[in-house]
């Protein structure tokens, strides 16, 4: 019996589908994201210096590429009485390398919490607005549209300026900025899932509407929002840094990439490029990593 009904309509389409190729870009994304996560956990402890304490070497330039092997040798053999400043020090004497690898704890924490908050709120309202369509939820969508049409950065700046510079306020501001995206995404997916047969079947089975929404529609509508998370976290890191840069973010001396760029920016005219360039590179790489991972996940999801 089972061999008889195994030969099915769907199997014919199954074997024409191309073999899934290994996605190297996705691997790059996974690597960067994993690195950032590891640094968020261990970063503050593994640097050669305390990221929040100054050293006596002010505005010390990083070693040139050719000097690195010699410096390494000196350090290991004990000729050097302090660990080398691989990325130099800034105008206050902070070791930039230690601060660059300590910063993910601040940045990723803010970005992650903001994202989780907006994900939960956004998915909730998205489900509400997608499943129960009436004037109330329609109004909700309009409000979220208005919210979304404000420039993200200005809005976060104003919110933090009004509520004060604390991590909590930054998280709330970012969450508010990103919630409409999740509302839209989830609502769109809910609308498409609601028209599917298994929702109808669940109704015919005697489920209540609430039970259909939570047991059937919600779990099948989460994927786009979860994929968007990766991209959002990347951009939330960028936004956190941006807020710090304009002085609306975390307070010094917290190691934070945006703050470091901002501190270093004054020295760039003096030719001291290193206090800004290294944290800047770190941000670029991180945002790139999250975005690439998000795109790869999305492609994989679309392929099914």
């Amino acid at each position, binding site marked *: *019996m*089972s061999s*008889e*009904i*195994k*030969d*099915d*309509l*769907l*199997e*014919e389409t199954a*074997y*024409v589908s*191309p*073999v899934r190729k290994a996605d190297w870009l996705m691997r790059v994304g996974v690597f960067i994201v994993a690195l950032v996560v590891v640094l968020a956990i261990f970063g503050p402890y593994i640097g050669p210096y305390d990221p929040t304490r100054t050293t006596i070497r002010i505005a010390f330039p990083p070693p040139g590429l050719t000097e690195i092997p010699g410096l390494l040798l000196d350090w290991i053999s004990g000729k050097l009485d302090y660990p080398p400043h691989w990325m130099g020090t800034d105008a206050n004497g902070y070791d930039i390398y230690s601060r660059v690898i300590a910063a993910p704890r601040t940045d990723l924490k803010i970005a992650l919490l903001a994202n989780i908050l907006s994900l939960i709120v956004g998915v909730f309202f998205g489900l509400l607005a997608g499943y129960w369509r009436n004037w109330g939820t329609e109004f909700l969508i309009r409000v979220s549209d208005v919210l979304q049409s404000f420039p993200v950065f200005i809005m976060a700046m104003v919110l933090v300026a009004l509520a004060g510079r604390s991590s909590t306020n930054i998280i709330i501001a970012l969450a508010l900025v990103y919630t409409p995206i999740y509302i839209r995404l989830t609502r769109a997916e809910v609308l498409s899932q609601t028209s*599917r*047969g*298994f929702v*109808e*079947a*669940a*109704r*015919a*089975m*005697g*489920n*209540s509407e609430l*039970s259909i929404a939570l*047991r*059937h529609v919600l*779990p*099948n509508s989460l994927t786009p929002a979860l994929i968007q998370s990766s991209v959002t976290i990347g951009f939330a890191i960028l936004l956190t840094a941006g807020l710090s840069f304009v002085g609306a973010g975390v307070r010094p001396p917290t190691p934070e990439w945006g703050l470091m760029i901002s501190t270093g920016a004054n020295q760039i005219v003096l030719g001291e490029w290193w206090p800004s360039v290294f944290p800047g590179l770190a941000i670029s790489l991180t945002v790139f990593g999250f975005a690439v991972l998000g795109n790869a996940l999305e492609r994989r999801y679309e392929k099914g």
Partner: protein
Amino acid sequence: MKRDNPILRVRDLKVGYEVPGDLIVPVDGVSFDLNPREVVGLVGDAGSGKSTTALALMGMARPPGKILGGKVEFDGRDLLTLPDAEIRAIRGRDIGIIVQNPRAALNPMLRVGRQIGHAYRAHNDVTAAAARMQAVEMLRFVGINDPERRVEAYAHELSGGMAQRALIAMALSSAPRLLIADEPTSGLDVTIQAQFLDEMWQTVQKTGSAMLLVSQELGVIANFCDRVLVLHKGRIVEDAPVRKFFAEPQHPYSKEVLRFYQERASGFPLQVSGKPGFLQTKQLTKHFPLRGSDKVVQAVDKVTISVAKGEAVGLVGESGSGKTTVGRCLMRLEHPTAGAVTLDGQDITELGATEMRRMRSRMQIVFQDPFDSVNPRWTVANILDEPLRVHEGGNKAARKQRAVDALKQVDLDPSMMMAKPRDLGASTLQRVNIARALICNPDFVVLDEPTSVLAPRARNSLIALLARLQKELGISYLFISHDLTTVRYLCQRVAVMYLGQIVEEGSVEQVFTAPQHPYSKALLSAHLMPDPTRRRVDNPALAALEGEIPSPIDVPKGCYLASRCPHVVDNCRANLQVLTDLGDDRAVRCERVVNKEITNENAAAHD
């Protein structure tokens, strides 16, 4: 049947593709001939390599597949070794192909006439104006009304049947000597299917070309083919004249497929003596408001159906006839505009939300698409548990046992409890759907085209299963289908719908052997029985209906069929027709039939 000069000679054709570490060969050494004026059917299960073979005959393979070897000799030239330019000249000019899903095969951005013109100009050195003339001629030839206007249409403006004909027009525009039709009628209504195949068959006879008709439908094969090739696991396992194939199938696969029809060919399902009117609709009506106007789409119009306890009633009709909406109203997935639905004496249209939910354990529905109707993230165990959780609650272990029993009831192995829908085939999953519908022991089940996405072999076993369950459990079915063969084998009574109305109702035997209403007659005359001794092409054409189904937005004043009926008189256009009991337990919505003004000229056209 073998003649000296076949048009096409295929020898040891192999198509395969590589997966890491392995070579898969879906077409593994196929050999056959096609002779002039011959229509050859290529049958076989899904996955047997039919479509791959059809494409390979034109020297093509869908990536990642490749033609690995063999010969395809057309007019003595091996197509597989010809240079690209020469084989392109042959494709379309000498060999035409018609694929499934006509609408997807037409370019949505181009007018139909231009597409046919392009195909024609690719092989004939003519001006655009001449190509357009040819396009009009071809559309006229394939029976499209008003071809001068239709050449200006885009694909979305055509119905499925018309799009299919436009494709045929394209395939025939250069008068090919060989036609390859790959499931050309899947998804078409029976009347259009019959009309279309008639046209193809006549073309082949008129032009002396040959046709390879790939189809899983034995009805199509029996009525139109001269010879049958059975493809099984990439090889031709049987090559026989059509009558011999049906009378004495050789290969085990052929025997198995045919057994179902042979077992049921004699007699009709036995009448049941259950309580009449167990499920009853009275004047059931459903209108959908049309957005942006005060007009309505009249989907269901005063439908009265009665299903006895333990009886299976078929609801047949073409797409757009409103049969699915009737099923949805019965389940209260749509709230009817007017009329009543009673189950066991209780009017379900008046129940409150909570009472209705409770009522749902007594009435269930199985939908058309098995994959769409289950939550894709759930396991079979979750899926089967859901109705029990909603209606009975209680002990988890006991519920699990019920789920296992339900799987056994539909002939599935309990080991698949932890499988997810994507791991299962369509017919297996449809059995899971049936198990889910039956798990709370309902009295009544709506089956909404449950077999239409299944391959014939799976379809047959599902019909046999449904018939067995009906007998064992004493359930009543409303079986909605456009496939008359399945209705004939499963149902005791049948109701024929046209444009939201029931036009004829009676026992399956009455309606199938002697349909009364002109629409039922047309529908049944288009029905292809898998019986080569009474081939459609050997008999004079039966009355087909002219024109197309009117829009359900502006329904005619009198009889809905008046614009298409061959027996129409002035009264028909003026008088609204009423479903009238004929006394012998059947009812017809046609006053001319009731008044015995129409003689039953094509009675017994079917068994």
